[in-house]
């Protein structure tokens, strides 16, 4: 008992010392002007990690970014523990008012893929909006259901239970995916709705893209949603999705670019940046589930204001060319224009 007490005391002392060391370290690591620290979205991380060396070369700005998830990005920029946050969903009114003067700027665009695990299917799975909604509503429960067979006449669909897998943490991917389902299924819109966390009626939840991907890998009959880059990097099979023009599209750069045609010429509000379920006029290539991803910056950023303006401006202009190899689509001019107007709001302020 006595030994345990001494051991406990030692652990406590070491822990306190480590905490103290951590504090002094983070205090000394607090960057001078010319460097910015950010956190948030895992979705945009591959793109940001290409930007970090490039923006250092071009402008001498040192960027540090940790992919902790969109929810954490919003929470940390609200607490001002970082210079910028990144989120795949625009902020809700409650989140905006809590952030006290934050501006939300689009800086990336990519498609959302639906990887699946169906042993012996033989060909690429094809799905349409109502089928996906019914799978995630739990009303289609088997892979050989007539609604799926009709879309896949050539595939060998087994009599296997469908396990829908969703994100348990607050996620921009969930926001984009449920936005799409609300658009294509009135039943989904009425029963579940769209947000970064929703009450999924069926299936299993896991944390992070790697969490849901892990469940799909190890569970026959599972299907989930993750960004296209993640699926491609991990060599997942993902579904072709039927668009309004009747084509089965892939979440590649061309598919997402085609879906952009529905955006208005002049964008005045982040809520207009919705490109799920594009109209028939977008063509047969248009991929129906894509999402913008955003950087969140305080409008009164103190001595960091100039560096942040330069960095975000560089990201939405020069930075976009790093996108296509990673399945990120360069922002169109109307979205860039919207971003410029937002960037101007970042001031030293008080």
């Amino acid at each position, binding site marked *: 008992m006595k030994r345990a007490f001494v051991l406990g005391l030692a652990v406590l002392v070491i822990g306190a010392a480590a905490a103290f060391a951590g504090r002094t370290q983070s205090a000394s690591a607090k960057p001078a002007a010319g460097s910015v620290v950010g956190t948030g979205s895992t979705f945009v991380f591959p793109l940001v990690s290409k930007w970090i060396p490039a923006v250092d070369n071009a402008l001498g700005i040192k960027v540090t970014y940790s992919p902790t998830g969109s*929810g954490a990005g919003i929470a940390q920029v609200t607490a001002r523990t970082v210079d910028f946050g990144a989120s795949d969903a625009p902020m809700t009114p409650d989140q905006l008012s809590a952030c006290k003067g934050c501006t939300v700027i689009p800086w990336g665009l990519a498609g959302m893929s639906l990887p699946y695990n169906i042993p012996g299917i033989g060909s690429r799975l094809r799905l349409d909006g109502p089928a996906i909604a019914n799978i995630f509503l739990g009303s289609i429960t088997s892979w050989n259901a007539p609604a799926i067979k009709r879309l896949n006449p050539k595939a060998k669909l087994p009599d296997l239970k469908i*396990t829908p897998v969703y994100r348990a943490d607050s996620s921009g991917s969930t926001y984009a995916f449920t936005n799409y389902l609300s658009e294509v299924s009135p039943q989904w819109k009425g029963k579940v709705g769209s947000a970064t966390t929703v*009450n999924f009626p069926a299936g*299993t939840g896991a944390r992070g893209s790697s969490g849901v991907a892990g469940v799909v890998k190890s569970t026959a009959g599972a299907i989930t949603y993750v960004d296209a880059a993640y699926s491609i990097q991990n060599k997942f099979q993902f579904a072709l999705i039927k668009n309004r023009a009747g084509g089965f599209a892939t979440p590649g750069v061309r598919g997402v670019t085609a879906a952009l045609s529905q955006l208005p010429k002049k964008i005045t509000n982040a809520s207009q940046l919705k490109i799920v379920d594009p109209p028939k006029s977008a063509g047969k290539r248009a991929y129906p589930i894509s999402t913008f991803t955003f950087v969140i910056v305080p409008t009164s950023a103190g001595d960091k204001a100039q560096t942040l303006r330069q960095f975000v401006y560089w990201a939405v202009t020069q930075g976009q060319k790093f996108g296509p190899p990673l399945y990120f689509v360069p922002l169109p001019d109307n979205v860039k224009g919207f971003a410029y107007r937002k960037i101007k709001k970042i001031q030293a302020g008080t």
Partner: protein
Amino acid sequence: MTSTTYDPAAPETDLRRRGLRLGDVLFKGVSVVAAAAATALLGLIAWKVLALAWPAIQDFGLSFVWTDAWDPVAGVYGGLIFVYGTVVTSLIALVIAAPLSIAIALFLTEIAPRRVAAPIATMVELLAAIPSVVLGLWGILVFGPWIRDHLEPWIQATPLGLLPVFSGTPSQAGILPAALVLTIMIIPITSAICRELFIRVPRDLTDGALALGSTRWESIRSVVLTYAAPGIAAAVLLGLGRAFGEAIAVNQTIGNHNVIPTSWFEPGDSLGSKIAAEYVGATSLEQASSILYLAAILMVISLATNVVAQLVVVRFERARRAV
């Protein structure tokens, strides 16, 4: 010679007496401050959690606790799904872990030769050193799939499979996988305390029982277990408290589904897991304060368990003294 000899009868010098007193005062001060700080901290944390949960407590009232709903889009929140998940996973873990822990402790103290007992005891205690997040990962990658492919089909093949809680499709994430991970987490704690208790059973008593002609099992049952009973009860309740509070490992293995599943094979969710998953990134103030309401419920359950553990010990002690 006489000047250097210490005379205990002679009055002590002033300095020496004052030094002693200073030490006493210092020691007393430090212990009073430490005790007061710990008490105050408990109060402060409880107060803060309640204060942050207050908007939800006002909105939903006490019926939140038995409301079966969690829908951030519709703004409907209730705690029953998570209370069920927490209580059921922890109780399953307790029912499996308690006899196993006692058996391990008995093996180590009564049966195994010392040369074998020492390394095994260390290994069992080291099991507690595995961080819960690592245990949860192992649950996702190895244990969960094994449960789905082997354990759950096997349970369904036995007569137990007729029970509704063992019906449905086996799944790698659910109430049962989470409960089994919790079992692994609480065994080292309860078995270490039980071992400590059994070592302290006076040798005279067991020797006496053996001398009176009882078998080894009889002496264990009538002497060791009886003597250690209050401690065992407290150890088991401590393990239960540990299981109630676990967030990460449960989050990784329970399946995070907002329902009360009829089958233990199916995904559900627990209080700790929901708090860990949803507090960061809560999209509305209502959602954030509802999550803190869950935290308040969890705190009440855990504190109640600890209080009950202490009452049990007191009660047993009294009963033993009466005998």
